[in-house]
């Protein structure tokens, strides 16, 4: 079902021919047009959309989803799926806040949370790569387990953060730009190099594209899978840290359904469910579609019930248009 490698969507056409950016633009035309069209429509229909504060907070809003979606994108490219990101984010937030309240230096708190995410991801990746249990089941299980552990440890209660510096990570500004945007930009650059300019990155694409061939070419596919799930765990943990900073507290109950939004962002941005295909830039665009859509519907005062309907239709519609475009290229 739905097994095709879209010939024009490989993220890998770098090198050799001219402009990488142009290629990327061409490949992601559909989502980019979608997000621009949404923006134009909202700028016309509302006078509150095209306002710098609104746009900036839209960016800030999207950051948590983008961070998680980066991890999901890498996992999807590698042929997997990760449903544990929401629980991981919640747990990481709790960890950071508790440590920060205990007076530890912020760097230590955040690193500890990241290590937690990495270990969770490592566990997922280890089980997935060393058995034939599908990633869906493994990460669904860890999702439930980590959620439970979070509740057990906290007694279900949020922890208010008393460290004001920490909160700035989520709520602060730098040169008028929200801090989380810098976090995302930094992560994007690092990941971009990892995915596009290192052997490991190529191996992720290869493992997702054809694991057998990758193995025959000497790629240690198990290690690649483990490292990708580790990345996803770490990114989810980072998202949890940013979220906790925005909420001024570590909350064990947040993050439910985060994987859903992140998957939607990845897929809207052209990442394939069959592995081997996807770009981080596309994911940013996908997350922006979701962000602009939610923001716009609120500004347009669309009834909350109808928002569900619109959101579902937009996801399906966008993916369908992308499919049509690819089907046409295929025919040519």
């Amino acid at each position, binding site marked *: 079902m739905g097994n095709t*490698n*879209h*010939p024009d*969507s*490989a993220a*890998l*056409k*770098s*090198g*050799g*021919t001219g402009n990488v950016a142009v290629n990327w633009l061409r490949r992601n035309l559909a989502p980019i047009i979608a997000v621009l069209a949404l923006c134009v429509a909202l700028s016309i229909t509302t006078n509150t959309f095209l306002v710098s504060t609104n746009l900036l907070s839209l960016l800030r809003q999207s950051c948590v989803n983008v961070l998680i979606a980066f991890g999901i994108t890498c996992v999807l490219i590698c042929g997997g799926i990760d449903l544990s990101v929401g629980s991981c984010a919640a747990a990481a937030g709790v960890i950071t806040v508790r440590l920060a309240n205990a007076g530890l230096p912020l760097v230590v708190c955040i690193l500890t949370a990241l290590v937690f995410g990495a270990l969770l991801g490592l566990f997922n990746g280890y089980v997935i790569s060393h058995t034939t249990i599908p990633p869906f089941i493994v990460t669904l299980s860890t999702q439930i387990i980590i959620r439970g552990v979070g509740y057990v440890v906290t007694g279900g209660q949020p922890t208010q953060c008393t460290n004001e510096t920490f909160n700035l990570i989520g709520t602060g500004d730098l040169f008028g730009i929200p801090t989380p945007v810098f976090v995302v930009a930094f992560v994007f650059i690092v990941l971009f*190099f990892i995915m596009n*300019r*290192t*052997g490991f990155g*190529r*191996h992720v*694409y*290869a493992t997702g*594209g*054809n694991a*057998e*061939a*990758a*193995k*025959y*070419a*000497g*790629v*240690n596919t198990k290690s690649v899978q483990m490292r990708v799930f580790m990345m996803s765990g770490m990114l989810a943990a980072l998202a949890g840290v940013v979220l906790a900073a925005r909420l001024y507290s570590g909350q064990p109950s947040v993050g439910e359904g985060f994987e859903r939004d992140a998957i939607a962002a990845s897929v809207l941005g052209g990442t*394939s469910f069959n592995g*081997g*295909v996807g770009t981080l830039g596309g994911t940013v665009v996908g997350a922006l579609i979701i962000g602009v859509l939610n923001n716009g519907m609120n500004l347009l005062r669309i009834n909350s019930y109808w928002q569900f309907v619109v959101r579902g239709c937009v996801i399906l519609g966008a993916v369908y248009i992308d499919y049509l475009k690819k089907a046409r290229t295929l025919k040519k």
Partner: protein
Amino acid sequence: MPSEYTLEMNNIFKSFGSNKVLDDVSISIKPGEVRALMGENGAGKSTLMKILGGIYHADQGNIKIDGEAVQINTVDDARRNGISFIHQEISNVPSMTIAENFFLGKEPKTKAGLIDQRKMHRDTRAALDLMGIDLPTNRQITGLSIAKQQMLEIARAINENAKVIIMDEPTASLAKAEVEDLFRQVKMLKEKNVAIIYISHRMEETFLVCDTVTVLRDGKFIGTKNTSEATEKELISMMVGRKFDEIYGQERAVGGETLMQVKGLCSKVVKDVTFDLKKGEVLGFAGLVGAGRTETALALFGIDKIHSGEVWIEGKKVSISSPKEAIRAGIALVPEDRKGQGLFLGHSIAVNLTFQVLKEFINNLRINRKKEANLISTYQNKLSIRMASVNQMVGELSGGNQQKVVISKWLASKPKVLILDEPTRGIDVGAKAEIYKLMSDLSKEGVSIIMISSELPEIINNSSRIAVMSEGRLVKILDPDVDEISQEIIMSYAVEGGNK
């Protein structure tokens, strides 16, 4: 200690569970030697090579390169020891570019530790040019024909500057022209003192390019001979373990009245194909790779859309827009990709065998177990499929036996027209002979067969008439009663047809 051998594999043992696949096998190869590795399906050839290539580990035994014992635990180890591998199954990542596939697992790095894109593309370009492959290095693999992909794999392996190159059935999906390209490369490598291990089921290739030949049977080493001293018959009897007369022993089928007429058939690839098929004949389809033979079959079977043209069977015009309709019209297709298109590998032989005739024993929510069992045993015996039981998974069978399952599956549906697309690809001599025999028997029973094959001897020896295709057109139908037939003549039509 310098050795006269580039490669020695000594006393290799290997079992998968309780299945002993290699049993004390040793081979040694000198620099510049081309060694054929022959044996029936499942003899253990690929397994032996995968041990050398670092994909499997031997249970026992040692490997020496240039006289020095080496440990090969990973693909990387193999590569470092100068071993490169063209796998039996095409193994590339379709969503990645040619250059990226070329350097997968051995990406060149810049000083900063990032991938050196420029070097990657430059080197790939050079390797492609050497093989005469005219494709941009940043093209994705997706959409390339199997033959092209195979050529790329060959270019990739040759490019590694290896001491030992393993070629596991490199020509299985190549036609003559490409095979010749490959042989030219083999000669060049030989001059560079590279040792080559060449696995193929095509006997004539063995004699053409190989210096020596090692035969395996049931995982045991049977013997090594110089090709100059060996005969075809000798090798075959070594492989099958008994005297063997003739592969092409069957008398040629002669057609009766016209059964099927194809008039002006056009599809996305096929252009204006017209031919008649007689009752009980074997119509061979020859042509270069990409000539559109498979596409003709796909159109006739309702998988590719027919844009224009008519198909008549037994004087009645039939409309074919889906495989279901084709089957109803009496057409059966044994596809070229056995595993991908022909079989449910995760299901039992029984399920596969009976798939086309479910109606005969399942009706009104009842399964007539007796009838089902009868059907299964009929075809089990008819084709002498070697298996543990009918409940064995098809995926566990050797290639030849898998092919027999596919053919039986279709025979059960009692087709009038049986299309066989590359029916003997990757199948050992014993199984080949059985399939030829089967074709002959079927045509005697009045089944008309269309046989698509890239092996010219197979075409020439089994066909009643030979249709030659070139670039989507059917350029000539050769009739032995009228025309002279030889490999050269067929090739000239296959090539010239395209020049018109």
